[in-house]
């Protein structure tokens, strides 16, 4: 009896094993064939391209063949099935042989860096912000032949050795987005032009039961504007790079001190959310749209998002943050992500064609509320045009250089966390001193 049982168990186990083994090898085979199939098609595609380029070489006028599939990765998980898909469809209409697949990635920078490391970069992608310019040639192909060099802003920011590797997807102005109705309810008749007027307006809003400014303190990243305002205080489009040459860049009364002091005063006077640690980013957009909160300090890209959350477009306005009492309007423009094309793309011509399409024809910059990267194209956002009509002094933010990135990464410097620490710390001076010390140590450690 017992022996019989043992035997049958063995038999079952043996059977199971052979089955799993079978599965294993089958899978292996399938993978193998799939992979080789892919390779075959890829090879065919490249051959086609090679043939096409050869043809171009021999008879000048023929354009490179726009065909095959390219993949575009984006951080806009919210647009992948709607607006961005339209662009892919339109591109396919224009070039019937070519298709674009759009892939949205959450935690974009982290995931993309892993793909870079494993040579899995999509044909067209957004270059993660922390990638150093000196690494660009290892991963991306030069884009000088797109013929856009003389027509775009921020051309030098993602260039290396005189070649262009990244094209800005658009830029945004830093400023105050506000709900005009909330201002009217509080009895504010004119947009604040000086710092005193700003605080006076905040006081009126508070008295009317409206939260004057949404900081979104908890989420940390929405504080990045205060670092950008420091650029204006310093009157230096490359403040971060200048910091990389200094041992103690965070001086009392320095640019960051001045910028954070405005935020600090806002917080201390109760002009912000009641509990800074349970702020809610998605909720704050609804609150600004409905007038429960009056202002944001963010890039102008937030304007369309407030409108999406239920505000009438004519009720949303945008003005530069007044930094002092001089009344002079100053504004900083910062580029959003840069597009890059994978060095090892199988269909580089198609990828380039789609990139050109994205920049020149898609209208994505208008949709996202960006200032277009093309110099000859006017921004569509009415609020932005209104704002630019006041002729503010414009500072174009320069790209962060490798020295700055090296020090910042070493020290684990996060500008928004710096703003958080400055506000939460008991004494701003101590916080600045400790940041100075860390900066100095990190700078010494990386030998810059």
């Amino acid at each position, binding site marked *: 009896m017992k022996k019989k049982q043992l035997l049958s168990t063995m038999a079952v186990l043996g059977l199971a094993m052979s089955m799993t083994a079978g599965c*294993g090898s089958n899978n292996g085979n399938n993978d193998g064939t799939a992979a080789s199939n892919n390779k075959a098609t890829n090879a065919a595609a490249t051959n086609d391209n090679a043939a096409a380029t050869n043809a171009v070489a021999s008879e000048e006028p023929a354009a490179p063949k726009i065909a095959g599939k390219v993949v575009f990765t984006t951080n806009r998980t919210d647009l992948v099935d709607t607006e961005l898909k339209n662009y892919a469809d339109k591109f396919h209409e224009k070039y019937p042989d070519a298709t674009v697949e759009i892939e949205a990635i959450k935690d974009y920078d982290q995931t993309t860096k*892993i793909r870079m*490391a494993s040579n899995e970069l999509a044909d067209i992608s957004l270059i993660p912000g922390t990638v150093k310019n000196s*690494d660009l040639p290892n991963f991306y192909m030069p884009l000088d032949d797109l013929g856009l060099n003389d027509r775009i802003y921020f051309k030098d920011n993602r260039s290396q050795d005189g070649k262009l590797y990244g094209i800005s997807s658009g830029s945004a102005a830093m400023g105050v987005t506000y709900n005009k109705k909330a201002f009217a309810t509080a009895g504010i008749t004119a947009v604040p032009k000086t710092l005193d007027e700003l605080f006076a307006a905040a006081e009126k809003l508070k008295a009317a039961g409206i939260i004057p400014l949404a900081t979104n303190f908890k989420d940390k990243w929405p504080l990045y504007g205060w670092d950008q305002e420091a650029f204006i205080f310093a009157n230096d489009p490359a403040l971060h790079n200048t910091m990389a040459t200094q041992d103690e860049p965070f001086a009392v009364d320095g640019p960051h001190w001045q910028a954070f002091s405005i935020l600090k005063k806002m917080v201390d006077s109760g002009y912000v959310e009641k509990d*800074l640690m349970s702020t809610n980013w998605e909720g704050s957009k609804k609150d600004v749209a409905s007038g429960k909160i009056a202002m944001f300090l963010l890039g102008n890209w937030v304007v369309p998002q407030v409108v999406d959350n239920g505000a009438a477009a004519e009720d949303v306005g945008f003005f530069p943050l007044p930094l002092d009492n001089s009344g002079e309007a100053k504004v900083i423009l910062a580029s959003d992500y840069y597009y890059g094309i994978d060095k090892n793309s199988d269909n580089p011509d198609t990828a380039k064609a789609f990139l050109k399409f994205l920049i020149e024809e898609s209208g994505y910059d208008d949709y996202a509320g960006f200032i277009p990267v093309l110099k000859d194209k006017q921004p569509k956002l009415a609020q932005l045009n209104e704002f630019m009509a006041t002729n503010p002094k414009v500072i174009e933010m320069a790209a962060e250089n490798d020295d700055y990135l090296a020090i910042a990464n070493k020290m684990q410097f*996060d500008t928004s966390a710096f703003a958080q620490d400055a506000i939460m710390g008991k004494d701003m001076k101590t916080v600045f001193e400790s940041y100075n010390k860390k900066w100095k140590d990190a700078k010494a450690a990386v030998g810059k």
Partner: protein
Amino acid sequence: MFAMSYKVQRYVILFSFLTLPLLLLAVFSFYPAVYLAWLSFTSWDGYSPDKAWVGFSNYKEIFTNADIFKVLSHNFVYFIGGIVQNILALIFAVLLNSRLRGRNTFRALLFLPYIMNSVAIAYMFTYVYDAQNGSLNALLTSVGLESWIKSWLGDAGIVNYSLAFISMWKFMGFNMVIYLGALQSIPGDLYEAAKIDGAGPFQSFFYITWPSIIKIVELSMLLTVSGALEVFDLPFVMTKGGPAGASQTFVTQTVETAFNFSNYGLASAMGMVLLLIVVLVIFIQRKLILRGEE
């Protein structure tokens, strides 16, 4: 196959059964571990093709930079929570091991949180702890305890306790089930004999129950310690290490070092150090608890 001797057959079976699991282990566990160890000696930034060898400088930095080890004090809160969790689990196990009406229902209820996905739990408690609209503060208001209202996730002094409570709530049921199993393996006649000899409930707990389950307690403590050292999901999902780094744990800090600040080399070294700490703690624990037994 049947012409093989018994010995050969045995080896064939042994090897064929072990190849697959060992292969999986090697590919997904040993190889990454060795690679991690190698990376910890480089200054790799996470994407460049070159991985420069820097020797022990990453380790040197870990042990000289006070900021890195400071976060272990946050992990310590989870350890305290873990001890409370073990005590509670043992109490519930003893209670639910006795004849009690509806004990199976209670067992199921207490075990339920363990089955839930930890990210779902994190989201759930985000609403519970929300300072303005959260259910916890609403409850306190409705029973007249307004003075107890806190910003549970926003106060640097409280946030770790709030998070440790969740992990206690989640893992208590699991501990309880393990203890229940151990309790049920103690033969009933031991208690009967003790009762005849005149032992009370406390005496029978400390002289029969405790010595019988000490091995399981040791296992639970081991899981608690390594669990406390490796807390990641709750702070990562709920607070992102905030406010201002107050709920950062060793692992969330490692992840940040690698992914936000492009310092894979240092992060790998931090991973290795964490591994060593866990091994060391287990070693000490075994020496302390098993002394006199071997």
